[in-house]
Every structure is written in C-alpha cells, then in structure tokens.
C-alpha cells in the first residue's frame, strides 16, 4: 500500500489545528499515513494524530532543531521523508510550509504544488487556484515522490481512528552559514486570531476613515472570536498595517464568514477572499461592486450597522 507523509506543524507546543485538514486529504485515499515531527514531543501529540488516521510517527531528534532554521528544518524533513518510504509529502501552506516545502522540492528537484484546495493522493492530482481565483486548475503530478501544500480551511477535518507507532531518528544536521537568523521580532498582536486561520473575518475598507476607527471593527470582532482584516485602500491610507491586508498582494483567506465593512470590492480584494463560504458586505453605496460578489448585503453606513452588529454578537457570546 502506498504511504503518505504529513509534516506535523506545531504551534505553541500543540499540533496546529489545520494539520488535521491536511491529514484528512492524506488518509482519504486509504493510504498509510506517517506523521513527521521536527519540533515538540511526538509522544505528546500522538493521541490527537491517531484520531486522524496517523499510523506511524517519525520524530527527528537533533539539537539543531531547537530554533527554526530553514535549511536545517528542510534537511531534517528530507531525512524523515526518506526514512518513511512515503511517495507523497503533504504540509500546510502556512508561513512555515511556504518556506519548508519549496526548500525540500528545490533540493531534491521534486514536483510540488502549493496552496492546493483539494488533494487526491491516490491519483496524485490537485485542484488549486490560478489567476487569483479567477480559475481553478486541475493538475496532476508524476514521479516517485510528490509534494503538496494544502491551503488552510480547504476541508472539514474527517476523523479516522488509528494506532500509531513512534520512532525517533537521529540525524546529523548542520546549518547553512550563509543564511543566519539573527532575531525574531514579535509584533504586538492586534487581535488574538490569525487571519489565515480564522473561521470568521471582519474586514475594513477605505470608508473606515482613520486608524482609530478600526477599533470599532476590533470591538465587534472580539465578541465572536473573529480576526480583523483590511482592504488595500485601507492599508494604503495608513488605517491598518500591511499584515492585515486581504487581497491579491496581501493574504489569501477562506473563512466560513467574511464580513466586508465599507469595502467597495475591487477585483484584487475579491481575489484574496473569494473562497470564503459566505461573504457579507456592509456598504452605504448600493452600487458598490462588492454587492455583485457577496452572498448577503446590508446597504447602510458602517458606523450605524457595525455597532448594532456588535450588540447582537455580544448577545450570542
């Protein structure tokens, strides 16, 4: 039977939630699933991985893995991948996955598709967005070993019970001294929820009018655990930092609900959020293009509607 390896990305000592989505694609075809753990403790996450079809875990032990070093992590993943005998490797298209998978693919000259929204491991095929969501492409990969990056929130996790073995391997790892990580600068968090992981997102556009007014969106979002995004117009006007930008040259998100507040709906913004399950627009201009692209619309001033929405959300929570 074919074997599929999945890179188990950790966050604050636990398996990152979206990894269960990746595992869902991995176990769907009936393949054996092998989890590759580079950081944290494999025994500690065994239980949760077993619920999603993982039947073996390979943990790479090395002091070199204590802190993220791109080259070292790639080499460690390669060692585990080869040890596993898998013919596919899946990982999340997260910030870490975006750095790790291409490094592995480049080093071994393997085919790689990033940000797939559907992965069919048995057939080595994927569906992924092209032209910022204006088309989907069905792509097939061939070769003895194929790599797949999975876009967060692409599938509802499906459980599959398994019993997992845990194996530790020692790997000699040395860092590439040409690239040295000097420091990690932590930004004071604007909200608790990461945009690309959020199930609910509220975004503000140019109509917000000032950086201070964004607090109205944060206040409303807080009640339902939503992340807060911004349009390029809001970012360019200095109302929000770039890391909040959703759209073609910002983040691509696919939450269950995307609430666009005072966003006119440029094609480029739509490109970053069109795969949201439900899109809601609040805008005082009834002719705003966003109303052609959303599922539900409220024609009204955001400064009237958002505070009301905030009250209803507060009742819910």
């Amino acid at each position: 039977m074919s074997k599929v390896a999945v890179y188990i990305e950790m966050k604050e000592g636990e398996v990152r939630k979206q990894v269960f989505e990746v595992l869902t694609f991995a176990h769907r075809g009936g393949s054996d699933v092998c989890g590759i753990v580079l950081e944290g403790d494999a025994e500690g996450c065994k239980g949760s991985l077993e619920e999603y079809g993982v039947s073996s875990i390979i943990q790479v032990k090395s002091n070199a893995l204590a802190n993220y070093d791109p080259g070292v992590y790639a080499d460690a993943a390669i060692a585990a991948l080869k040890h596993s005998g898998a013919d596919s490797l899946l990982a999340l298209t997260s910030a870490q996955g975006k750095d790790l998978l291409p490094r592995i693919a480049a080093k071994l000259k393997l085919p790689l598709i990033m940000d797939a929204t559907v992965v069919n491991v048995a057939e080595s095929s994927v569906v992924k967005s092209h032209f910022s969501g204006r088309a989907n492409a069905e792509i097939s990969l061939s070769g003895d070993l194929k790599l797949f990056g999975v876009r967060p929130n692409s599938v509802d996790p499906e459980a599959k019970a398994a019993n997992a073995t845990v194996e530790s391997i020692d790997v000699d790892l040395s860092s590439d001294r040409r690239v040295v990580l000097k420091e990690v600068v932590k930004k004071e968090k604007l909200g608790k929820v990461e945009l690309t992981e959020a199930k609910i997102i509220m975004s503000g556009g140019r109509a917000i009018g000032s950086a201070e007014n964004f607090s109205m969106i944060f206040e409303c979002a807080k009640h339902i655990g939503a992340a807060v995004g911004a349009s390029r117009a809001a970012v360019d006007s200095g109302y929000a930092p770039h890391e909040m930008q959703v759209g073609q040259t910002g983040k691509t998100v696919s939450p269950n609900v995307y609430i666009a507040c005072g966003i006119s709906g440029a094609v480029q913004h739509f490109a970053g959020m069109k795969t949201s399950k439900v899109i809601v627009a609040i805008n005082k201009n009834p002719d705003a293009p966003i109303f052609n692209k959303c599922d539900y619309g409220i024609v009204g001033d955001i400064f009237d509607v958002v505070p009301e929405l905030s009250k209803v959300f507060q009742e819910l929570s």
Partner: protein
Amino acid sequence: MKIYVCTKSVADTAATIKLVDDTHIQEDIKFIMNPYDELALEEALQLKEKAGEEAEVILVSYGNNSIGEVLLQGLAMGADRSIRINTTNLFNDHITIAAVLAAAIKKDGEPSIIFTGQHTIDVEGMQTAYRIAAELDLPIVSNIMKFEYNGDKVTVNREIEGGDKEVYEVSLPCVIAANRGLNEPRYPKLPARMQAKKKPVTVYEIADLGVDESSAVSLTKFILPPDKPPAKIIGGSPAEAARELVRVLKEEVRVL
C-alpha cells in the same frame, strides 16, 4: 556587480479569464509585470543607485510574446538590459522554469544578487525563487519586506505570521524574493520608455541553454468558477438588519 531580476509577465489582475480549450486561456488579454517582481526590480534599482556606476541590473524573463512589453517596462524603470527566453507554454513546470532562468543567468555572468517576486499572481506556484537558488547553489530568503545592503552581506526582514518578522543576515551571492511592503515601485517616465527601446535585449532559445524540460507537473484542465447568484439584500433599520443578518448566518447557513 551584476544584479539579476527574474520577472514574469502575467495576466492583468482585472482581465477576464476565458478558455480556448481545457488547458489554454485566451491570450488576447492585457499582460503586466508580476506585481511582486516589480518590487524585486525596484529594490534592485535602489541597490544599484547605492552601489554605484559599476552595478548593472539585468532582467531575465521566460515567457510568451507578452514578455516583450513587460521587459520594456522594466528597462524604462531603469534596468540596464534584458534577457528573454521564449516559450509558447504559459503553464510550464516550475522545475523547468527555474532551470531555464538559472541557466540563462549562468550563461550571462556571475550574479551578486538575484531578486525576484515571492510568487506570481497567475499560477501562484510559490517556489521558483527557491528552485533558482538550488540550481545555482545559492542561499535564499523569501517573503522579504526590508532589505539592507552592507557590502559582502545583506540584512533582510522576512514576514512570518501575525506580523512577526525574522531578521536574517545573508552572505552574497544570494537570492532574495520580494513581498509587498518592501518598497513602492517607481513609474517609468515617457522619455525613459523611448530610451528603453534602445537598451540591449539578449534572446535565448531553450535549446541554447541545455535545459531538459520537466513534465512532472501537468495541467489537466481549467475550471472557471460559476457566476455567483445575486446577493440577498437585508433591509430594515441598522438594528433590524444586524439582527436579521446574524439570524440568517446562525440559523439558515449555520456558519456562526
């Protein structure tokens, strides 16, 4: 000092994508320089201004006929010359794309820095920069929002998640993949466009470069998303509309 900028011409962000058949799009649309590559070029030009006269900025592009216009734009922005490699296939395997770009650079000269965009907005492959680096055995850092040149090395900031940044020191030569936030690309002035036409263009065919084309990844078919039905507009006072919206989201579509 040779500074290379790998760029791709991509379908304009506003262009409507139509299909000729399963695997080909209509190419009579506007093509533009990939926006992330514009940032890469701008950074290269700023570096040249800092490094002085002996620095040279060279554009490298692998693409269809539309790259002529894109290279001209890059030359008008200030690049010194360009290298183009022709293909008719808009959807090449990334293994091939990187091998072609790396081979063209190798044939041309010794790079000090290779800049490119962190991904292209057409196929969203997110890997070419890494593969170019591997082909040439150079260090690479992607997602760069800040770049500082200090002689034999560079210091870069790379965005990770939640606005956190990793600061790397990278020795030259290296590959740097640009993210938005790095700079604001300049607009070429009209006289610069006229001068750009006189700048040297080297044309290579893929056969000149000795690259074996990979077919490990192949496009099976495009599927255009269906048109969205018109939005349901929720009426009433702000308070009523807010309450009704939450009811719909919670009870009808069950997403809250």
